[in-house]
């Protein structure tokens, strides 16, 4: 065999090794990288489904109103009209799926009202706020106010 240039023979073996390595690399890569990788971008599209599979904890307003229209009416008449049910009653998707199996507990009024209505200089000035200790003298909020329509 004619030599291209002096001592070129020693390049052939490394070249073969490199080629083999490349083939192995490509084979492993095709085996490992999911087929659809890169369909929408540099990521696995299946991840979108994975995130979507997360269970829902808060059923949402519409689910509550399907059954509880009496409470909804009381609430719509008052200042809490735009406060979602689960904002006070907690996550109730399980209750919405199977009402008898998951009976929700009534929220603890003492902390519940205070979190929103305790006076704080950082709150918007038109938002109704009280210093609970002075305002109620230790009585529970719902002794006087009805939570769904808090007007006295």
């Amino acid at each position: 065999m004619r030599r291209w240039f002096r001592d070129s023979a020693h390049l052939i073996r490394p070249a073969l090794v490199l080629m083999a390595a490349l083939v192995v690399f490509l084979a492993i890569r095709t085996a490992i990288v999911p087929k659809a990788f890169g369909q929408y971008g540099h990521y696995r599209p299946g991840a979108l489904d994975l995130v979507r599979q997360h269970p829902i904890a808060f059923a949402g307003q519409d689910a509550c109103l399907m059954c509880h229209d009496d409470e909804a009416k009381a609430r719509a008449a008052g200042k809490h009209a735009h406060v979602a049910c689960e904002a006070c009653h907690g996550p109730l998707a399980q209750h919405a799926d199977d009402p008898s199996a998951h009976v929700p507990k009534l929220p603890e009024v003492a902390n519940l009202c205070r979190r929103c209505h305790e006076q704080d200089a950082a709150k918007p000035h038109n938002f109704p706020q009280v210093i609970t200790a002075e305002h109620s003298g230790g009585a529970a909020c719902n002794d006087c106010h009805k939570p769904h329509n808090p007007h006295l």
Partner: protein
Amino acid sequence: MDISRRDLFQIGGKILVLASVGATLEQITGAAPPGEAYRMADHWWGMLIDIEKCIGCGNCVRACSKENNVPQGYFRTWVERYEIEDEAKPPRVESPNGAIDGFPPSTRTDLKSFFVPKLCNHCADSPCVQVCPVGATFVSPDGVVLVDQTYCLGCRYCVQACPYGCRYLHPETNTVDKCTLCYHRITQGLTTACCENCPTGARQLVDFKNPQDPIHEILRTQMVQVLKPYMATRAKVYYENLDGAVR
């Protein structure tokens, strides 16, 4: 070796089960298009937060933590209380336990104070996505920055890259976790857990591709801004009535 009829059925059954497991794995890693009714191309999600409506009750933080099983001490959203005494000095910022139980009342009326709810800004040009070495975090076609929990190595590059400090390493899975903008809810027609439970409507989920969305009117007529605009991340969480001291 003798193979009885019974053995044959047993082995055959096992092979069938294994084959079906293989098929489901294929489906998980393959490109099953997400949802039939929901079309990703029709949405571009973001959020609008009105500082003048936020009362710092922490409902959003509690809701988020319950909806997404956020580990204790970690937050996908949190609320900060700013107190600015002197515009020339840095503001006092506090967020006790992410405001998951609200704030101890502040009585200082001699200074400017307000609440700032924070969450992932779901940037369209997100630095966290750019630094991921394995393609485990990405901007979805509908504009939500998500993490592929099966691909994440836990290298924390993205945690450092996020200019808003919105990512953390989940202590149990050791993969990065962050706000998903309740992707499992918004793709089913619900709003996010934080928006659902905000009693004053300070947080609103917005869809920039929906021409009926009030965001278009607000962007045109109101004073709105994003956090750290100089980072050029094209953040999609817009703030109304935000003070310039907020970072």
